[in-house]
């Protein structure tokens, strides 16, 4: 495993281009575009203010930089460096901005979710969509980029509007039987839309592309409900993580529950492999330590290396007692991710934040549990194979594959706390992001060393 040198970064804003050729990163008000293979700076754009959001267009030709504070969006072209575009939302303000799938329209959500403005880069036209709902995930595009679903709120009722992305024509508009719609998500095949209610009620509604209600599912009542959902890449399963520390999996034929995965703090099954991260005991010779300590030595002192060890089965994981009198308690399954080959599902139970559960979807059983020394910040599956990268905010990056798992120290000077990561589309490298630094990590093609 190799690491690139460390680059400066602000706001953890760094994205690979969808075609995998470029890496865009923000440093204050500058946008830097690098070649992924050489890491040479290809373009350098200067925005009007500190960039708060960065997004590549789907064709990798344009980059969107949002400056919410100023209500500004600046778009840069990679092909024509001199081309520029600035969208000012003015007094309406700006809270979110995103590309439409065709890469020629920008959807800006104004403050207070007054409206969504659709700016076209091709024509002068501007469209407005009124009544967007302020919720967890109120806007979603199908994978093929044809349709957009939008959660709306009108007259204290939830609605979903389906738009055709090519000309922003309203295709369907229907109300949903929800108290407070929390999110919507297209299935990868683009034919089923899942909508879920807020955490006060456990309710999932499944709509067809033509607006028919296919099914509703509710596991229980009177308790905090759904936290997050995830579609399997084959659209075959819908995983629902909820506050009761369980993941329920629905099938795509009957939309009934196939199984539920409980996330208990004690694991008794001896068939489950449990990897526990252990600190490597550093045999530092105190006498040899120079005084004053050099920078490297200091960093090595602070960054204790770690390794995974297989722990035999009766294991109790570190739990966090959630504060019950605060909203959004830290309990329940908050992160879900299917592996690209549909074989595994990685989950995190928020009150056992150090552990990542990996479930075998084919057998519908718990397969592996990784317990770390710190709370898991995020994880992402390699887009090419069943390999999971995890970061915990320490200076390690953790990789798991069915063959085993490994903890790798980021060999950066100083403290490189990996706060988030994202894979390159080839699956050969990934970007590790710390608070103000960026580092690329390359995997050898043979596999984990």
């Amino acid at each position, binding site marked *: 495993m190799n690491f690139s040198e460390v680059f400066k970064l602000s706001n953890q804003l760094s994205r690979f281009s969808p075609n995998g050729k470029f890496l865009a990163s923000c440093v204050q008000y500058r946008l830097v575009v690098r070649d992924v293979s050489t890491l040479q700076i290809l373009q350098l754009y200067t925005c009007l203010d500190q960039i708060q959001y960065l997004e590549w267009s789907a064709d990798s030709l344009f980059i969107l930089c949002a400056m919410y504070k100023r209500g500004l969006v600046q778009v840069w072209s990679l092909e024509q460096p001199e081309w520029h*575009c600035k969208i000012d939302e*003015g007094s309406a303000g700006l809270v979110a901005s995103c590309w439409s799938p065709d890469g020629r329209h920008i959807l800006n959500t104004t403050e207070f979710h007054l409206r969504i403005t659709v700016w076209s880069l091709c024509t002068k036209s501007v469209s407005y969509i009124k009544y967007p709902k302020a919720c967890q995930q109120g806007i979603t595009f199908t994978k093929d980029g*044809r349709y957009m679903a939008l959660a709306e709120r009108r007259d*204290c009722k939830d609605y979903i509007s389906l738009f055709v992305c090519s000309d922003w024509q309203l295709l369907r508009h229907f109300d949903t039987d929800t108290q407070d719609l929390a999110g919507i998500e297209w299935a990868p095949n683009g034919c089923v839309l899942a909508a879920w209610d807020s955490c006060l009620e456990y309710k999932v509604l499944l709509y067809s592309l033509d607006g028919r209600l296919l099914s509703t599912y509710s596991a229980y009542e009177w308790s905090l409900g759904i936290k997050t959902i995830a579609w399997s890449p084959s659209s075959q399963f819908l995983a629902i993580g909820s506050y009761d520390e369980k993941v329920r999996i629905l099938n795509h034929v009957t939309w009934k529950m196939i199984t539920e995965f409980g996330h208990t703090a004690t694991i008794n099954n001896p068939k489950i492999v449990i990897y526990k991260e252990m600190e490597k005991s550093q045999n530092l010779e105190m006498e040899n330590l120079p005084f004053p300590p050099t920078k490297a030595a200091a960093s090595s002192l602070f960054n204790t290396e770690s390794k995974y060890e297989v722990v035999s089965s009766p294991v109790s994981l570190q739990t966090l007692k959630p504060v019950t009198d605060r909203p959004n308690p830290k309990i329940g399954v908050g992160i879900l991710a299917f592996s690209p080959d549909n074989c595994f599902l990685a989950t995190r139970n928020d009150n056992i934040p150090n552990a990542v559960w990996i479930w075998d979807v084919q057998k519908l059983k718990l397969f592996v549990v990784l317990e770390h020394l710190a709370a898991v910040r995020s994880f992402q599956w390699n887009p090419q194979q069943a390999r999971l990268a995890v970061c915990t905010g320490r200076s390690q990056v953790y990789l798991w594959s069915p063959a085993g798992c490994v903890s790798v120290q980021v060999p950066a000077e100083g403290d490189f706390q990996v706060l988030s990561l994202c894979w390159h589309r080839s699956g050969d490298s990934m970007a590790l992001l710390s608070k103000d630094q960026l580092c690329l990590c390359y995997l050898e093609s043979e596999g984990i060393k």
Partner: protein
Amino acid sequence: MGDWKTITVPIPSSESKNISQFTSETNMSPSSLYSQQVLCPSLPLAKSVHSFFRAFCTEENVDQSISYLDQELTTLGFPSLCEESKGKEVKRDLNIVAVLNCIHELLVLHRKNLLAQENVETQNLKLGSDMDHLQNCYSKLKEQLETSRREMIGLQERDRQLQGKNRNLHQLLKNEKDEVQKLQNIIASRATQYNHDMKRKEREYNKLKERLHQLVMNKKDKKTAMDILNYVGRADGKRGAWRTGKTEARNEDEMYKVLLNDYEQRQKQILLENAELKKVLQQMKKEMISLLAPQKQKPKEKAEDSPGAVQSDVEEDTSELSKENMWELSCETVREQLTNSIRKQWRILKSHVEKLDNQVSKVHLGGFKDEEVISRQDHEQETEKLELEIQQCKEMIQTQQQLLQQQFTTACDDDTSSLLQDCYLLEEKERLEEEWALFKEQKKNFEKERRSFTEAAIRLGLERKAFEEDRAGWLKQQFLNMTSFDNKNSESAFSGSSDQDNLTLYSKPGQKFYSVSSESSLCTSKLTKSLPVSPSTSELFQTIHHLSTNSRVLNVTTEDTKPNQVGRECTTQRWSMASRSDSQEGGCSGSRSLACTDSSIEHRDGLP
């Protein structure tokens, strides 16, 4: 009670002291008593006694005391101490004998009393202790009673308290329930209130939003703008189309297309899955049939519980199987048939497996008995095999011994010797085989010969029978003629007959008979025994033999004496016999008599 005890105890003790004193005195011999009494005044030690006596009787009041004693004694029923019979003058005189007797009796009585007293005292003691014990028990029980009563009271108290507590708790529970209800109501009301407020707020918010929207929109915010260098082409290179009804319809179409595609894909997947499942089912069915077909007979033999449906099923299945293309039709009837038949077969298989399981368990339960029964046949076979092996082994050992000896005697090579041995064995084997083949051939030949012999014998027997019959017929005729005509006629008839030669043969001794009659004597003898052609012929033989001996005798006689006479006699005898038989059996008689006549005639003829 203790008081009573303390009082009672010392009394007997004091008494017993006195008694002991008395007893000690009484136990003494009368002489010693006497001497003591005598010595009493002189003994200073026995002061108490002395004083006692002195108190009652002194020198002065002897008489009085005597009389008193006498009186007392008489009242008590003792004989008086004084002799009254002698008059009043002698009254003073003590009758010493009576006194002594009295004393003795008194002593005896006293002793008895003492004994009784003792017994009574011991009993009293016992009773006292018993009493004590009982008292103790009583007191203890009383205490127990007291404590238990106290406990009971305590428990009752506690129970009461608990009940009180329970009541309190019930009350509390009720209160809590009420509270909960109240709280729930409150929550519900709050929730409704909240929802209501929320809605109100949201409406307000919406209104504000609307207003803001209007403000923002209507203000024609100069800032709200896009500053763009030049417009870029669409990603697909086309120009944006106008929004018309057409585009709407097109969008709808496309959406449905997408949906249709999805459904088609799904259907394809399902079809694939179905096909595979069908394949699996088919295969399963085939395997089941093949599995069940051979098993079907067995259970039927064993028990009738396997239904006849099996056969029909299988037939059905085979017919179904023949229509392979039926599988492709996914119509419901076929599916039902398939599932039903598979279900049936599965049931059969299951029952069969269960049966097998039962059998297995039975065998396990039955233990060794069944195994023995089963293995008996095998056992014998096994023993045979083992015996064979033993023989082989023995042979081996022998050969080995031989070889060893050979080795010892002649130091020739093992190989050559073994080779030689092998050669020998082989040769021998070959020779044996050859011999065996030869023997077999011989056996076959013998068999063939025997068959031919038997055939010949049968033929002969038949021939003889035919001949016999002929002759019988002929003789009958002859006999009939004979009875009607003269002897001469018959003689002439005999001499002229073709059978004469044969008859002569009979008359001649056995050698010739044998040589002519058949090739082997054994065979004929067998024939005569095993294949009795007819009773007549066999008897005929006998008679012939008889006659032959006779004839021999006759021949001898003919040599010595005049044959004619004897012959005559003989013939006359025969004739008489014949006539007798004739008279007995009537005119047409059995062959026997006829034969006799024949022979007789023949003899006569044969005579020179």
